[in-house]
């Protein structure tokens, strides 16, 4: 084991080193998390974030909160467990939103010319704030999983309503009753359109009428509890500070 003297000899020097570390750390975290969280979201549940007509009342409010919980759980663990920073989940969601908005404006609207009001992403900020608050006040991952992750799932749909409401207004389209979101979808035929017809608004839950939305949200909230526990354990692996002795 190597023994050396300290690299600095005063509080001021130590302070400068720590502040320099903080600044570059913020840059690294924001760029990294914006990148990989966005990749995770777009390839696991991207279709539901891309298009207004995919923002349905059964799959959308189930798959988006469920998949999008993975990174906030890990962010919470790393920042809270090791640094006592209480906004890990919110940071993850802000990074995701930043990436999504830059790309929708620049590429979906700027390169392949869809209107922005057809390709806007939802928001998870209210859910993330609640998740962080529960961990901060309870200091317990178990309670955060049960109360926080459950709230994360259940709050998703109400969080979107002020953005989505206008697109659910009814329209008489050539004698067929449709929503504005549906009209947008049929106006812009995409390679995803066949899957839209196969997946969206299908199934026996239609017979439940207005109950579909709360049932889906309630099931999602339950599933989020399980996701929280699983990825809380995964976070322990990626937050490992181990050095493996030996050669490659």
């Amino acid at each position, binding site marked *: 084991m190597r023994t050396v003297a300290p690299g600095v000899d005063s509080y001021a020097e130590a302070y*400068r080193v720590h502040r320099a*570390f903080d600044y570059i750390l913020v840059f690294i975290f924001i760029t990294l998390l914006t990148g990989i969280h966005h990749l995770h979201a777009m390839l*696991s549940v991207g279709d539901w974030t891309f298009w207004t007509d995919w923002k349905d009342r059964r799959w959308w409010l189930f798959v988006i909160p469920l998949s999008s919980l993975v990174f906030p759980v890990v962010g919470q663990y790393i920042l809270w467990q090791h640094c006592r920073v209480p906004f890990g989940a919110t940071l993850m969601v802000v990074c995701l939103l930043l990436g999504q908005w830059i*790309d929708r404006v620049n590429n979906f609207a700027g390169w392949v010319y869809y209107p922005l009001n057809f390709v806007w992403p939802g928001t998870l900020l209210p859910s993330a704030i609640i998740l962080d608050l529960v961990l901060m006040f309870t200091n317990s991952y178990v309670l955060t999983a049960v109360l926080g992750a459950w709230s994360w799932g259940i709050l998703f749909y109400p969080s979107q309503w002020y953005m989505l409401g206008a697109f659910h207004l009814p329209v008489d389209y050539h004698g067929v009753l449709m929503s504005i979101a549906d009209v947008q979808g049929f106006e812009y035929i995409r390679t995803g359109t066949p899957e839209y017809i196969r997946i969206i608004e299908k199934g026996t839950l239609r017979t439940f009428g207005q109950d579909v939305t709360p049932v889906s949200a309630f099931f999602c909230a339950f599933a989020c509890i399980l996701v929280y526990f699983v990825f809380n354990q995964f976070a322990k692996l990626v937050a490992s500070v*181990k*050095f493996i002795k030996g050669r490659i």
Partner: protein
Amino acid sequence: MSATTQAVAQYQADQAKPILTSFKGIINGAHWLFGVAFITLMYVAVRIYEQVFAWTKGLDSFSMEFQTYWMSLFYAEVAVGAIAAFGIWGYLWKTRDRHLDQLEPMEEIRRHFKLLVWLACYTYAVYWAARYFAEQDGAWHQTVIRDSDFTPSHIILFYLSFPVYIILGIGSWLYARTRLPQFAEGISLPHTIAVVGPFLILPNVGLNEWGHTFWFMEELFSAPLHWGFVTLSWTGLALGGLMLQLMYRLIQLTNFEAEDITNEPMPHHHNMVD
């Protein structure tokens, strides 16, 4: 008692000093700025190229202009990427420090920040690849039916933006391994995961393209064929563990009240109720 009084006096004297005047001597901001500016300028140029030539020359891979404007770019990317990779990695290995046991603590602090600059460039390259060009690929393929594995968006995403972050990621690993004592004595588990995992996204392109030869997967961007990318994106989170390793070592190296410093075990919090 007098020692405590002396320490308090020293602390107060240090507090009175202007402490945020400069980070000079700790971190080389010019390297950081150069790396970020280089990546930004390169990708802005690429984005303009896409805007001009994707719709006009990139729709039919059997056409002559596709070969000229897009396949030529692909061959150039592969050639330059290979040269840059082996040049940079070879340089880092060739110029490795063979006397790490004699490394001065202040120099070790500076090298930690050089590693952080490598990592900042790495994550910035990941940001462009995983966020910008990956979703752009989704936008393109939801709009234009592909007739080749080498579509305009793939030529940028897979064969330019992926190699760039791989070169920087492996570069950061080699830098740490050859210039920092802790990383030379043992292999950092989180650093290795955070570099190898995102690197494997490039080989996973093989699976992706193989799957696309069977069916038009762009009908569903979140199709299971794409979940290999999803799982590998999780490995980037291991940079959190690496940052903790660096943070704990810097805390040790800046503990100016200590007589001497060893590679002590990392601190760990046990006050959770879980």
